C-alpha cells in the first residue's frame, strides 16, 4: 500500500550532481533540407529533437509528448505556421508551450506576428544564423528543464507530505489502540486489586477470629500454624499490592510539577505509622528543598524508601531515620539515611532490580519489589537514585530530582 502511493524515484536524482533532464524540441517545416539543417545545429544542445513536415504531423506529436519549444515555419502549404499555432493554442495543455516562428522578411508575416498574443512567442528570420537559433532555443530548453526540476521537486514534496500524513494516521491509530489498552489495563488492575485481595483479607480475618475465639482450644503448635497461615496470606497481599503499584508506576502518564517535600513526607510517614513499624524515630530536617516531581510517583518512592529504612534494623535496635535535602546545581538530592543493618557494596547495583533480596534478609518481611518501584518511579520522573552503605553502618539512599521554581507558601 505504502509503496504504491509513493512516486517512483529516478535513480539520477539520487546523485549529488545537478539533474540533467532531457527535454523535447519540435521542428515543423515542409522542407526536409531546412529540417535537417536546423536539426544539425540544435543537436549540439543534447536534447531530443522530433521533426514534423506539416501542422497535422506536428499536432500528432504534441498529443504524445510535451515539448520545451516548437520551432514553427510560417510559410507552409495547406496549413501555414500561424494556422498551426492557432490550433495548438486551442488546447489548454499547449497554451503555454513556447513557439518560435521561422519567417522571411515579409511585411505581412511581421504584422501578423505583432498581433499574435498567445503565450511565449519568439521569432527567427530566414536565413537562420546558427548561433542565434541555438541561443534562442537553448533559453526555452533551460526554462523547460528548470520547470521540470521544480515540478519533480513539487511532486516529491507532495509524495513526502502524503507519506507523512499516512504515517501520522498510523501513529494516531496506534495511539488510540494504546489508550484503549491502557484503560483496559487500568480497569483490570482495579479489579485485581479489589477482587484478588478480598479472599486474602478473608483468610487473615478468619485467622484472627480463630485465634481470638478458639485459640484457647488449640495448643501452641496449632496456634503457630495459624500465625504462619496469616503471614502467608499477608505476604501474598503485599506482593499483589506491590506488583500493582509497580505496574501503575510504569504506565502512569508523567507530568512534572513543583512538589513540596515536607507535607508529602508527613503524609507518607503517617500512613506508614498505621502499619507495623514499632516506634521508629523519623527526623525530617527543617527547610527541605522543593523538587519537580509527580505526586503519585514521589509518594511511591518515599513510602518504599522510608519503609525500608525503618524495617531493616538489627533486632532490639530502634530505627533512626533522617531525611534531608541538598542542592546540587539544578538538582535536589534527597537523602534518606538509616541506622539499619546496611548493605554490602557488592549488592548495591542489584538491589534496585525486581525480586532482588540481599543476603540474609529472609528474616525480614518484604516483597523484593519496593526498590524496583523506587527505581522505576525515579526513572520516569527523569531523576536518578542510588545508595551508599556498608554492613553494620546503616544505609544512605539518595534520589536526585530537578529543582523546583519557588512555590508560594500560601498555606502557612
Amino acid at each position, binding site marked *: 500500500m505504502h509503496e504504491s502511493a509513493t512516486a517512483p524515484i529516478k535513480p539520477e536524482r539520487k546523485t549529488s550532481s545537478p539533474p540533467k533532464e532531457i527535454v523535447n524540441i519540435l521542428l515543423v517545416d515542409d522542407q526536409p533540407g531546412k529540417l535537417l539543417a536546423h536539426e544539425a545545429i540544435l543537436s549540439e544542445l543534447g536534447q531530443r529533437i522530433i521533426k514534423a513536415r506539416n501542422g497535422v504531423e506536428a499536432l500528432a506529436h504534441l498529443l504524445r509528448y510535451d515539448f520545451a519549444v516548437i520551432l514553427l515555419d510560417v510559410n507552409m502549404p495547406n496549413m501555414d505556421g500561424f494556422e498551426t499555432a492557432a490550433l495548438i493554442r486551442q488546447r489548454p495543455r499547449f497554451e503555454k508551450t513556447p513557439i518560435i516562428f521561422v519567417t522571411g522578411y515579409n511585411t505581412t508575416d511581421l504584422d501578423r506576428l505583432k498581433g499574435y498574443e498567445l503565450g511565449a512567442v519568439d521569432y527567427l528570420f530566414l536565413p537562420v544564423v546558427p548561433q542565434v537559433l541555438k541561443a534562442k532555443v537553448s533559453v526555452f530548453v533551460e526554462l523547460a528543464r528548470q520547470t521540470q526540476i521544480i515540478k519533480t521537486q513539487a511532486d516529491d514534496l507532495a509524495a513526502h507530505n502524503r507519506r507523512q500524513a499516512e504515517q501520522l494516521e498510523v501513529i494516531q491509530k496506534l495511539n488510540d489502540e494504546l489508550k484503549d489498552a491502557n484503560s483496559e489495563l487500568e480497569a483490570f488492575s482495579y479489579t485485581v*486489586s479489589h477482587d484478588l485481595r*478480598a479472599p486474602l*483479607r*478473608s483468610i487473615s*480475618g*478468619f485467622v484472627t*477470629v480463630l485465634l481470638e475465639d478458639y485459640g484457647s482450644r488449640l495448643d501452641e503448635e496449632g496456634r503457630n500454624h495459624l500465625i504462619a497461615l496469616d503471614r502467608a496470606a499477608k505476604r501474598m497481599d503485599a506482593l499483589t499490592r506491590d506488583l500493582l503499584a509497580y505496574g501503575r508506576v510504569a504506565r502512569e502518564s508523567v507530568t512534572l510539577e513543583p512538589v513540596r517535600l515536607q507535607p508529602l513526607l508527613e503524609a507518607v510517614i503517617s500512613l506508614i505509622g498505621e502499619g507495623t513499624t514499632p516506634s521508629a524515630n523519623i527526623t525530617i530536617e527543617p527547610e527541605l528543598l522543593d523538587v519537580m516531581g509527580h505526586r503519585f510517583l514521589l509518594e511511591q518512592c518515599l513510602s518504599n524508601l522510608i519503609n525500608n529504612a525503618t524495617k531493616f534494623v538489627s533486632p532490639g535496635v530502634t530505627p533512626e531515620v533522617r531525611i534531608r535535602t541538598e542542592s546540587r546545581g539544578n538538582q535536589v538530592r534527597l537523602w534518606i539515611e538509616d541506622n539499619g543493618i546496611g548493605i554490602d557494596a557488592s549488592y548495591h547495583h542489584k538491589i534496585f532490580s525486581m525480586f532482588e533480596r540481599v543476603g540474609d534478609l529472609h528474616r525480614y518481611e518484604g516483597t523484593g519489589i519496593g526498590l524496583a518501584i523506587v527505581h522505576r518511579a525515579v526513572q520516569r520522573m527523569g531523576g536518578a537514585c542510588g545508595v551508599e552503605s556498608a554492613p553494620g553502618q546503616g544505609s544512605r539512599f539518595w534520589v536526585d530530582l530537578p529543582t523546583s521554581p519557588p512555590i508560594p507558601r500560601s498555606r502557612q
Partner: protein
Amino acid sequence: MISSEQTIVILLVEDSPDDVFFFRRAVHKSGLSAMMHVAVDGVEAMDYLLNKGRFADAAVYPPPDIMFLDLKLPHVNGFELLEWIRRHAECPQPPVVVLSSSSQPEDQERAETLGAALFLTKPPAPEQLREAVQKCPLPRP
C-alpha cells in the same frame, strides 16, 4: 453525638458474606448497642432507604442512623449510590462511612466529594466503628 447507651440503626451495604461476618463481629466487639441491617448491593440500599421491596416495613427497617458502604458493589456501586442519595433529598440522609479494600487516595477523595463522612479500610476494627459512630452527627432527634 450518639451516646453509646442508645440503640442505633446501622445499614451495612456490602456484597461479600465474609466481610458482613467480620463487620458484624466488629460491631459486637465494639460494645455498641446497634440494630444492623444488610443490603447486598446499591439497588437494595435504595430499596431500604425508600422502604421498598423486602424492606417495605418501615417499623422493622427504620431510617438508619449511620450507613457503612462498600465501594465495589454489583449493579450500582458505592459512588453511584452516594450520588443517588445526594440527589434524592426526600430519602433519609444518614452519615456515610465508606469501607474500601484499598486505601487508594483517589477513591477516598471521590467519596469525600460525594459527601462521605469517613473513610475506613477493610476490615474495620471494633474501636474504629465506635469512633465512627461517635464522630458522625445524629440525623434524628
